[in-house]
């Protein structure tokens, strides 16, 4: 009984299968003229085989213009054509897909090496397949410029000159053409001394670099944001490109000045016909070097005190440093004398004058035991009065 039940089921299953296959066979027959399409991502040299047709990506002629060159041929047929295809424009071969041929459309251009291509064809031609090229990928002809703008130092003072260096290097594989550097607008905190605007070679081969230097002088203090410099160029296919440097900050301090202080020390009174030394110290308490320091002085009254070595010159006194020298004094006549020392120097803001004065006393000739002339009589008087006091003390 169980066998009687299973047998009709098996028959029904076989029958169903036969019905499905029959239906399928009928459908294939109906779709043989239907147009199919398929997208391929092709690199240069890659090929698509579709039946007897062969389509090969020859080159990306212009990414900007959307031109791709493909070669289309048919095995055993007369078709062997290399055509520049415009982006998004269908190109028919052998009448196109509607007429049993093929239609090729460049759907997208990725770069100089690859593009997306759509193939339309009748299914009867078979299935389109991609054959990757076994040729090594052709070297890219792609220039790439790196731009760097640098200051000699990031901190400076008003009046300082600073050197700015602009460096452009072609790190790409192709030649960069029509290079233009735009370093504008000029910074108002600087006056441009020389070399501006910077000039860079118009053409740089791969690996080549060029630099331009210009000099500026800081004229205004503050923190400054140095803007990026933009370099524009094209590659061999006139593709325009550009790159820019990184902006950065610099600090301009107020103007540095030298500040000299003149100090005259060692002014003990001088005995008549005695000698003494006057120590002169010129110290720079400013922030800039003092240069071309000339020291000279006068003595008032001019006679009676002989001063030797008062005139002196120094080339430079650095900030925080000092220069010292000594002057020999010879007292020739008693009195008070004023030594006036005048120091002239370049302090970063023109010529500056500083003065220092000192009073020198030349003593009267001291007679030995002169003071006894006063003390002895007083002592005698006191002794005498004490003696008299004792005489009357009872």
């Amino acid at each position, binding site marked *: 009984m169980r066998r009687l039940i299973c047998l009709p089921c098996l028959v029904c299953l076989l029958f169903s299968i036969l019905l499905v296959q029959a239906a399928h066979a009928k459908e294939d027959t109906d779709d043989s003229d239907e147009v199919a399409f398929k997208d391929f991502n092709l690199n240069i040299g890659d090929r698509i085989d579709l039946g007897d047709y062969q389509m090969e990506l020859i080159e990306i002629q212009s990414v900007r213009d959307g031109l791709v060159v493909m070669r289309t041929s048919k095995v055993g047929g007369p078709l062997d054509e290399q055509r520049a295809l415009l982006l998004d424009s269908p190109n028919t071969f052998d009448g196109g897909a509607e007429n049993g041929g093929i239609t090729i459309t460049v759907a997208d251009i990725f770069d100089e090496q690859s593009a997306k291509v759509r193939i339309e064809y009748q299914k009867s031609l078979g299935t389109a397949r991609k054959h990757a090229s076994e040729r090594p990928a052709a070297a890219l002809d792609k220039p790439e410029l790196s731009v760097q703008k640098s200051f000699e130092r990031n901190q400076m003072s008003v009046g300082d000159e600073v050197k700015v260096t602009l460096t452009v290097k072609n790190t790409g594989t192709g030649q960069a053409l029509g290079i233009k550097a735009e370093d504008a607008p000029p910074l108002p905190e600087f006056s441009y001394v020389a070399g501006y605007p910077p000039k860079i070679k118009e053409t740089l081969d791969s690996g080549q670099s060029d630099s331009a230097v210009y000099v500026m002088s800081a004229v205004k203090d503050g923190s400054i944001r140095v803007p990026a410099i933009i370099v524009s160029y094209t590659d061999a296919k006139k593709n325009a490109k550009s790159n820019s440097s990184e902006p950065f900050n610099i600090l301009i301090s107020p103007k540095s000045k030298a500040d000299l202080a003149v100090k005259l020390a060692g002014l003990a009174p001088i005995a008549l016909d005695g000698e003494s030394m006057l120590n002169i110290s010129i110290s720079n308490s400013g922030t800039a070097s003092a240069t071309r320091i000339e020291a000279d002085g006068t003595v008032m009254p001019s006679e009676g005190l002989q001063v030797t070595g008062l005139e002196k010159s120094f080339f430079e006194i650095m900030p925080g440093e000092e220069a010292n020298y000594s002057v020999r004094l010879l007292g020739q006549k008693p009195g008070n004398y004023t030594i006036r020392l005048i120091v002239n120097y370049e302090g970063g803001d023109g010529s500056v004058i500083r003065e220092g004065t000192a009073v020198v006393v030349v003593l009267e000739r001291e007679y030995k035991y002169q003071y006894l002339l006063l003390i002895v009589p007083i002592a005698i*008087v006191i002794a005498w009065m004490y003696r008299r006091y*004792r005489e*009357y*003390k009872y």
Partner: protein
Amino acid sequence: MLNVLMLGVGQCGNRILDAINREAFGGGGAANLAKYYLRPKFPSRVETLAINTAINDLKELRFTTAKDRLHVPNLHGVGANRNVGKQAFMDNRDMIMGEIEKRGDFDIAFVITSTSGGTGSSFTPLLINELKRQYRDITVVTVAILPAREEGSIYLQNAAFCMRELMEVDAEGIILADNQNMKRFGGDIASAYNKINDMIAKRLLFLIESLDSEMLSVTDLGDFKTVMNGGLRIGTMGFYQADSKNLSISDAIENSLKPANLLYPANVADDSARAMIIIQGSREHLDVDEITKEVERLTASAGHVFKGIVIKKGNPKVLSVFTLASAPELESIYAQAARGMQDEKEKRCRARKQLDDAFAHIEDLEEIY
């Protein structure tokens, strides 16, 4: 040059001697400082010695050198007791005379003392005797100060006995000064006594200077001795300095003899025995005829008048020294002293009787314990 010894005995004598030393420094306030740088300037060789039994009295002196202060050790003074004083002198006689002897020989000695005190009144008569014994040719003149009458009965008693003893010793004379007469000069007692001391000091120095000066009309120590030997051998001094308003020398002489200018109140016309008039001043002020006339007028009452004229720049100064033929004021002092002594004696008797009566209450009793 005269060799002069000036002895100040007792507190009063010491102070007058100190005033003399101050005058030798120029006197006044300047003397306070001058003593430290000047030597005393005496007209002759003058030696001074202050003698006292009270050391505190000696300490009060300011212008007498320490070596010229002689302390006679007798506790602290003699308490106005002349008997104690005499005993103290006798006990220390050699020491006192030794101190005087150290100072050399002298032509004249002035012994300055109060007659009423203890030390001075008791020492002075004995001291004069010793001086006369030790220095045969010396002239000794006592300058005796009589007390004010209200100073007390003991002082009056001392004055009375002292004066009697002074009259008995062999001195050339006594120059009296009476505090009763002179204390009117000052406002308070202390300044009055100081003024008296200064007055006596100036007159004594004036006298010494005059005796030792070259004179237009000479008076010397002999004349002075003669004057002092006149009358009772008790004399006094008058002094007057003419001012610019009245430079008349005759008026100056007359004024010097007025009671107000005398150390002892006396009537020169009635009481004087001998006199010496010493006149000092600029030559233009000293009219000899006028002086002679005035002296002659004085001679009519005083018996004999020595006159000396010293030419020295300045207004006329007149020192008059005279001895008295009678001293009625002294008699009143003695009378007052006698009354005081009698009263004292009666008081003592009454007190003794009262005490004896008190003791009579316990005459027959004994102490019971």
